[in-house]
């Protein structure tokens, strides 16, 4: 459900569960984090995109609701945190192409990207408080990208925002028309980044990661804050109510 392709010094990582709007399962996040962990050193830029109608609708809530122990939700939160960190840790910049929806866990993936291109019709946000889940896990990475005011609003307000709004707050960096043009633009950016000489891009990415450390160093605390609520009554009641 994760496709990994290499073309010369470019890598393409694709969420490939289109019939479920690329809803994330523990296995998918395990492979996704693994792909970034094992990214070959000669790769100069990576594009992350999604097949089908949406980039990513977030966690697969049906399997979460079916698991009364909360273990599935815990695996997803842990896998998400690991994936975002793995995206930031690789030397090559990550260009993310979002279309349709980048919601909840799907929106959180933007926190691992260096440059985000979004299709104009994309809806983005973190509506997870509605199901009793805390998006705390994403907070260090969201606040490492956008100012605190908009970050607070996005994590507490379950409403989704437009791509244009996301551009204004700095969560998205470019807009494109239609999913095809969005992926194409992301590929163009990746090719452009790959042509830069020497170690300038990798050194600059590492430096920017370093400057963001006052935020991202809280990644473990943030994950613990989200994990603390899993399997509790509020989450169980709201999750099961989704399918009743």
């Amino acid at each position, binding site marked *: 459900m994760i496709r990994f392709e290499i073309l010369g010094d470019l890598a393409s990582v694709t969420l490939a569960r289109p019939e479920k709007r690329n809803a994330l399962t523990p296995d998918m996040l395990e492979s996704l984090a693994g792909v970034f962990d094992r990214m070959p050193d000669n790769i100069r830029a990576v594009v992350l995109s999604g097949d089908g109608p949406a980039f990513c609708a977030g966690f697969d809530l049906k399997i979460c609701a079916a698991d009364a122990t909360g273990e599935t939700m815990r695996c997803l939160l842990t896998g998400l945190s690991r994936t975002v960190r793995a995206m930031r840790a690789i030397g090559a*910049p990550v260009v993310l192409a979002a279309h349709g929806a980048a919601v909840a866990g799907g929106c959180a993936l933007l926190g691992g990207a*260096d*440059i*985000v291109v979004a299709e104009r019709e994309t809806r983005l946000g973190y509506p997870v408080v509605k199901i009793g889940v805390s998006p705390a896990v994403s907070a260090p990475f969201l606040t*490492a*990208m*956008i*100012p605190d005011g908009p970050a607070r609003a996005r994590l507490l307000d379950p409403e989704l925002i437009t791509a244009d709004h996301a551009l204004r707050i*700095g*969560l998205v*960096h470019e807009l494109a028309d239609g999913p095809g043009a969005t992926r194409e633009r992301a590929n163009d*950016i990746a090719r*452009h*980044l790959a042509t*830069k*000489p*020497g*170690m*300038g*891009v990798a*050194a*600059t*990415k590492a*430096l*920017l990661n370093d*400057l*963001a450390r006052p935020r991202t160093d809280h990644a473990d605390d943030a994950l613990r804050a989200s994990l603390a609520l899993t399997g509790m009554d509020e989450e169980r009641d709201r999750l099961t109510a989704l399918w009743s």
Partner: protein
Amino acid sequence: MNDAALLEHNGPIATLTINRPDARNAMSLELLDAMHAAMEQLERDARGSHILVITGAGKAFCAGMDLKAVLVERSGDASIGKRLLTRLAELTVRLRALPLVTIASVNGAAIGGGCGLTCVCDLSITHADAKLGFPEVDLGLCPAVIAPWVVRKLGPGPARRALLMGGVMSGTEAHAIGLIDFLAGSRDELAGLTHDIATRLASGGPKALAATKSLLNRLDGSEDPQAVLRGAELSASVLATPEAQAALKSRMVK
């Protein structure tokens, strides 16, 4: 102060002109020395000025580092890159700490370190056709000295895109991403707009402005110079790599 930077006072508004027009105001050691001398003068006695406008003589605002100087093969001096970068790092820290409210009036090209200076200033003004940007990565370089200032000015997400993508943008684009605060319609209107904004700022109480600036510096981490000074070392080490020197050399040939 040598004449590579000129400081003038006109009541509450001082103007610092980067004055190496033949070299598009590229930052040489001499130019950085002159800028430091101007900082020293303003720190000691601002002569009643509490607004500082920084602009460039001639067509460019500041074309960035003097590339001729940092090409080792040409200058025959392997240490000059690090000295220039360290001197620039110190200048940015000093400029940010000035109690005067600083305005970059970007008359033309503001490239690399030159564009970095606009981010250190409290406010920036340019016109639609100016060229601004951070093409360091295009030359295999890492803009580590100015990165902390760019992150503060643009916010981390947009700064990441600007610094990793390289290239240059128009004044209009720079205004759209928040790199520039005020945009004049044309180059001819820049001086007038700069004067209006400087005069408006000068109407504020000098103590109130200085206290506000000082607080903002404390809140956004500007008072800690370590990241900027470490940046000079990182930038210099990337500058010394064979790939960067080769890219610089091919740029000089063009």
